[in-house]
């Protein structure tokens, strides 16, 4: 086996996706000349950073056979926590930490309901999707918080050099890349990461093999909640306002990226690298179509089509289990 083949063993789908993105990029760049400048794509990535962060956290949850529909609402709630804490006089950095903490607690709530409560994750997170959003509206009375210090807003608009290239990338992109790297580290290099795959492949067998299934699940949902808190901080910095209706509908985009990236919705298979590529694919589609002047409504349609067809491609790889 060649070195390359050995390195990418089990990554069949991700490699295929990565390779498929190249002609796709070439074609889109031909029709939308703005795409030829990589800095434009990097610039546009700032709008997908929150979705990317949530997608990385969603990946282990889906691998383990669960799902978290409440992430969008949680971003809204954590954003409100951030905004109102700051308005109440808490220093901004502490308010941001508070937002992440609130996310972690909410995530733990999800985890507890799924493990102790034995309620299916779909039902739990459907309920918490409404609860968190409702809490956001209740706390804020639908009044947003804005007027954050300019340095905070500029953080959401600043650029750093993507070494070693000469390109300028939005600062938040680095946050996403760090989160993606951490996700990769967790899933591939830690024991609990390994457990995630075990639970997803066959939960009963895992339990009999002394895998602490409940603890694993609780951890995953808590991490997802924390990620939502982090995404909320990024969102508020980028948009300059903490609103209760923030990130509405994001969970669908997030799941799209995860499934596009090769994670099987039934569990047991998936990688953060794939999710990263899924995010890139969605970014490419959205930005390319946007630059070409395709109206908003068409973009939604095309992303849906993209999702269905890649979901069909999944079973084509049946048997290629990690």
């Amino acid at each position: 086996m060649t070195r390359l083949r050995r390195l990418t063993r089990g990554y069949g789908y991700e490699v295929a996706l990565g390779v498929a993105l190249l002609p796709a990029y070439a074609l889109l760049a031909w029709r939308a000349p703005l795409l030829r400048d990589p800095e434009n794509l990097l610039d546009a990535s700032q709008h997908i950073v929150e979705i990317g962060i949530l997608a990385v956290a969603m990946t282990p949850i889906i691998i383990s056979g669960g799902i978290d529909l409440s992430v969008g609402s949680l971003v809204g709630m954590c954003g409100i926590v951030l905004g109102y804490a700051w308005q109440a006089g808490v220093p901004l950095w502490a308010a941001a930490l508070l937002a992440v903490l609130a996310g972690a607690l909410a995530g733990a709530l999800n985890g507890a309901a799924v493990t102790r409560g034995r309620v299916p994750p779909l039902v739990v997170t459907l309920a918490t999707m409404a609860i968190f959003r409702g809490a956001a509206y209740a706390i804020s009375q639908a009044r947003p918080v804005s007027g954050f210090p300019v340095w905070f807003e500029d953080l959401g608009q600043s650029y750093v050099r993507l070494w070693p290239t000469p390109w300028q990338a939005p600062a938040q992109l680095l946050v996403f890349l760090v989160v993606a790297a951490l996700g990769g580290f967790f899933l591939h290099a830690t024991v609990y990461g390994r457990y995630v795959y075990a639970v997803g492949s066959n939960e009963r067998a895992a339990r009999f093999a002394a895998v602490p299934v409940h603890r694993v699940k609780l951890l995953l949902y808590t991490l997802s909640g924390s990620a939502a808190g982090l995404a909320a901080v990024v969102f508020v910095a980028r948009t300059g306002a903490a609103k209760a209706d923030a990130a509405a509908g994001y969970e669908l985009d997030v799941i799209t990226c995860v499934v596009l990236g090769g994670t099987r919705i039934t569990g047991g298979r998936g990688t953060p690298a794939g999710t990263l590529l899924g995010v890139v694919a969605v970014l490419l589609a959205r930005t390319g179509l946007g630059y070409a002047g395709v109206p908003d409504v068409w973009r939604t349609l095309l992303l849906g089509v993209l999702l269905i067809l890649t979901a069909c491609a999944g079973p084509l790889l049946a048997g290629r289990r990690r």
Partner: protein
Amino acid sequence: MRTGGALLCTTLLLIAAAATVRGDEPAAATKTLVIGVMPKLIGIEYFNAAEKGAREAAAELGVELVFDGPVTNDSARQSEMIDLWIARKMDVICVAPNDPDSIAPVLRKASRRGIRVLTWDADANPASSLREFFVNQAENEAIGRGLVDVLAEQTGGRGEYAIITGSLTAANQNIWMEWMRKHVAERYPDFKEVALKASEEDQQLAFQVTQDVLKAHPNLAGVFGITTVSLPGAAEAVERAGKAGQVKVTGLGLPSSMKKYVHGGVVETFILWNPIDLGYLTVYAAKLLAENKLQADSTLEAGRLGAIEVKGDQVLLGPPLRFTKDNVDDFAF
């Protein structure tokens, strides 16, 4: 083969997507001005009318117009779309923001890149967004006071009233409400506001919240629907509750959607301006701005609209119009 299948699928998809994409017209070759006009959202009659006017002006002036916006009144989506426009290097960006503060960072970015920025219909925070001018449909004071006067005429200036607004962040709606409250405080001390509800530019939601208000306040004398979507929703709720005539309804609405309520006796009078003209004026103002011919405290010539006053940094379309059963059928919007 299986990997190949996945590869094939994904590539085919993106090719299909790319193939449906319309390429950009080579406007950069000639020096046609590219003006982007963004409503709060697309798909409601008010902004459809504005688009009509905008396209009319663009055709007259020979500029390229891009009219697009999010499908819901989502301020984050607006920021995202403006970012795309910045990358497309438009000459002027005109936006009706859903949130005056959250749109500010991206508007500052546009200014930094040398793009001229205007707001229309609703304003952004002038200090933090650095927008150069605001194309306003009418003086906010005139709208606010006018609305209250209309309801006061019908209810004798006393009683409980409710306001159904669009979104709690929209700058224009908030400033009209400020003037409404001021006018009530100054002129109608017996008028009492008992409810304020948001309807998020969704007529169905406006209908629901008005129903709730009617149930919660059985002695309600009047309802204001201060967006073109909330007024018909509120009127429908009053009609269905059988309270037409008992609860007076007024606000800002389009003649086309309010016709049946006016003739049905639910609404006597309502106010608006001409949104077609607003769209038309916005494009004219944008072109003048790009040519550095738009100045504060002056007048400008706006095609078929004639002389338009620029008061401070606001370009004013004109005084608000009153619609009653006598003239509601006369308009194309």
